Structures are given as C-alpha cells and as structure tokens.
C-alpha cells in the first residue's frame, strides 16, 4: 500500500494541471499568470499545463480580491474541480484584499470564499514568483 501511495503522490507532484480564474483583479496579475505560461518560462518542465475545464484541473490559480459578484462563481468553480485539488492565491489582493480592503463591494482575500493552499504576494506577482509558489506547493504533496 505504501508503494501505491508513493507512486500516487509522485504522479500528483509531477503532473499538476492548472486553471486560471480572475475573481476581481485589476488584470495585472492575470497578465503575469499568462506570461508565466509562455515558452520563455517553459512551465511544462514541471509538467504544468493550462486546462480550460475545471474538471481536468488540479490547481486553481486565483488573482484578485473576492468581489460580491464573483463570490458565488469562484465557489462553483472550486466545487466543480475533482479531488485532490489545490488553490494558489496570486497577488497581494488575492492574499488579503490589498488596497481594496474595506471597499463596499469586496469581501476580502480568496480565503474568505475557499480554502487556500499557497499565497504568492506581489503587486503584481512576477512570473518567477508564481512558478516558485506552485513548485513549493507541489513539494508539500506527500
């Protein structure tokens, strides 16, 4: 049994498929997430692929604070993903709502809506920081 668990954890570490969701960001973090998907940064080295459907994805990458409009949608997307699943909050706003803290339409960081596994601060977070965050998250899978 232990060997099977080890192989399963190995496969999950080596093949994370991501899906990208904007929960109300100013678009700067989204551009950085897209930049980290380009051939220049080559995240396929780590087996990372961008998927369109939440059913296929393992890692949900969220950018921006959770607005009242997007709260229900981000919960729906999270629930559509299959287990095991992970969430990465990219950018200062995603971590803590940032400068939008206390705004009339903002609930707070991503963790006010769904559980978050990794926080990547930055305004916006650089592609190197995003890749570093995802790879560190993967190394916690045992």
């Amino acid at each position: 049994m232990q060997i099977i668990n080890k192989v399963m954890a190995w496969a999950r570490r080596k093949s994370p498929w991501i899906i990208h969701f904007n929960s109300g960001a100013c678009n700067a973090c989204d551009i950085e997430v897209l930049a980290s998907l380009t051939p220049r940064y080559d995240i396929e080295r780590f087996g990372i692929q961008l998927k369109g459907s939440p059913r296929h994805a393992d890692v949900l990458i969220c950018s921006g604070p959770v607005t009242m409009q997007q709260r229900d949608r981000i919960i729906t997307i999270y629930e559509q993903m299959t287990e095991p699943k992970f969430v990465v909050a990219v950018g200062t706003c995603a971590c803590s709502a940032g400068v939008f803290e206390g705004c009339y339409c903002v609930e707070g960081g991503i963790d006010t809506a769904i559980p978050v596994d990794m926080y990547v601060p930055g305004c916006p977070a650089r592609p190197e920081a995003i890749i570093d965050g995802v790879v560190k998250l993967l190394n916690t899978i045992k």
Partner: protein
Amino acid sequence: MANLMSVGTAIFNILVYPGFLFLGVLSLVYEYADRIIYARLQNRVGPPWYQPVADLIKLLTKETVIPSEANNRLFRSIPTFAFAATAASFLYIPVWNNRSLLPFDGDLIVVMYFLTIPTLTFFLAGWYSSSLFAEIGGIRAMMQLFAYEVPFYMSLLGPAALAGTWSISGVSQFYREHPLLILINIPSLAVAIFSAQGKLERVPFDAPDAETEVVGGTFTEYSGRFLAMFRMMLGAEMVVVAALIAAVFSPFFIGGNAALGLFLFLIKVLAVVFLLALMRAALARFRLDQMVSFCWKVLTPVSLAQILLDLIIKGAL
C-alpha cells in the same frame, strides 16, 4: 487442444500485442515524442521523459465526477468504445514485416471505417454530457468529420489504386518491390498529413476542443479515469494514423529480421509524428468555415488529381 491454443492466442492478441499493452506503451512514447519535439521547436526544454506516465497515473487516481444531468451508462461506456475501435484498427496495420496480423483484401477500407468511430464517439460523448460547451464541441467535431474524411480517404486510395490492391499489407508489399513509384504519391502524402491533423483534432484543426473558445470541448465534463481513457485513445489514434500513413507511403520494409523491422517501424512512425508536431508548432487554429472550405476546395481536388494520375500511370505500366 487446438481450440485452447487459439483462445490463448486471442487473449494474448487482445491484452499484449497488438492490443492494450503494446498500443498503450506506443501511445505514451509517441505522446512524449510529440510534446518534446513541439517544445524544442518553440526553443524550450520541454517535459521530462516520464511526463505521459505521470499524467496517466494522476488521472487514474483522481476523483471521477459524473454530472447528474448526463446519461450515466453512455457517459461511462463511450471512452471504452473509442479505445476499442482504435485498437481494432491496429490489427490490420503491418508492424515489423510487410504483413499485418489479419490481412485480407479490403482491410484499407475497414481501417478507415474503424478510424471514423472515435470521431463519432466524441460527438456522442459531448451530446450525452448535457453540457453546453461539450455539445458545441461535439457538433464541431461532427462538422470537421464531413470536411477531412473525404480527402483523407481519397489520399490513401490513390496509392492503393496504383498498387492495384485494397489490402494495406499488399500496398506496402507493392511499394517495396517498386520503391521509385512512391515519388508519384508525394502530393497525396501532403493531403494525408493535413487531413490526419483534422482526424486527430490537433492544431490547425483543433476547433472541437479549443480551450479558449469552448472550455474543454467534447471532454469538458470528463474527469479522472474516463479522461485518462480518452487521452490514451487519442495517443493510440495518433500512432495508428501515423502507422497507416507510414505503411501506405513508405517503401522501406524489411522482412525476416523482426528486431530491425520493429526499429524501422518506430523510426517511420516517429517521422510522421515529427511532421505532425512541426505543423502544430508552425500553424495557428483555422476557423471552422475556413477549415471546411480548405478541405473541400484544396485537399479534395489535389487527391482527385492524384487518383487520376495514379490510374494513368497504372495503365501505362
């Protein structure tokens, strides 16, 4: 006793060669080859060698969700049908010598029919998922079927008409004996490579599962082991189509030595996969109407002219 032997042979054929094990390993190897060639053409490092295996194990061990709206029984069984049709078509394609496992006159047509079934299952999978994106993806897959299928069939019929046989083994035997005649079929080879991209739903003809337009296309609702089955099937289909093109268009077959024959087979399939990956890296996605008009206005006339040329040369020989 003889009865028992034939049952044993059948089980070996289904499970090991050329069934699940052989085709599964080949599909993983060529999926890796495709991805690393694509990565090198984009001037990047690319995935490590174990990447397809890791993807497969991860998908097999993930939770599998079946939407409550979907038709449960069909949703579960469609991936199996798709893989079975692909694996069955591999029976008629020669591997290490110029004779396939079960050759008969007319197996070229049978393989073409078997290779149509996966596209039909894509449509059914999309339809019975009861998701809007999956349905749009399925309808796009069906629409592409009407565009690429005719040039793909006709591009293989030209060489077969010149060889004067409907058997894939017979065609490859003929071109082994007359290797120079293969030069006549080069336009047909180009048509076959282009329309194979449509059959495999790869760039530039990947409108059915374009993730920027229709989320995941046909496979939007599929997850876990059913998605793994579909991915295996897509890899196997790429191997089968590449092996079919290699068998019909290349004269380099060596009978007798099995190891050398298998090596040549792997090289030939790799060459076709390289061409497919080159096109994937070089071209952008066609709109659906552009794709249909390109297939009917360019590829079909070229393959028609090819059949005519082959018939004239056959008359002159």
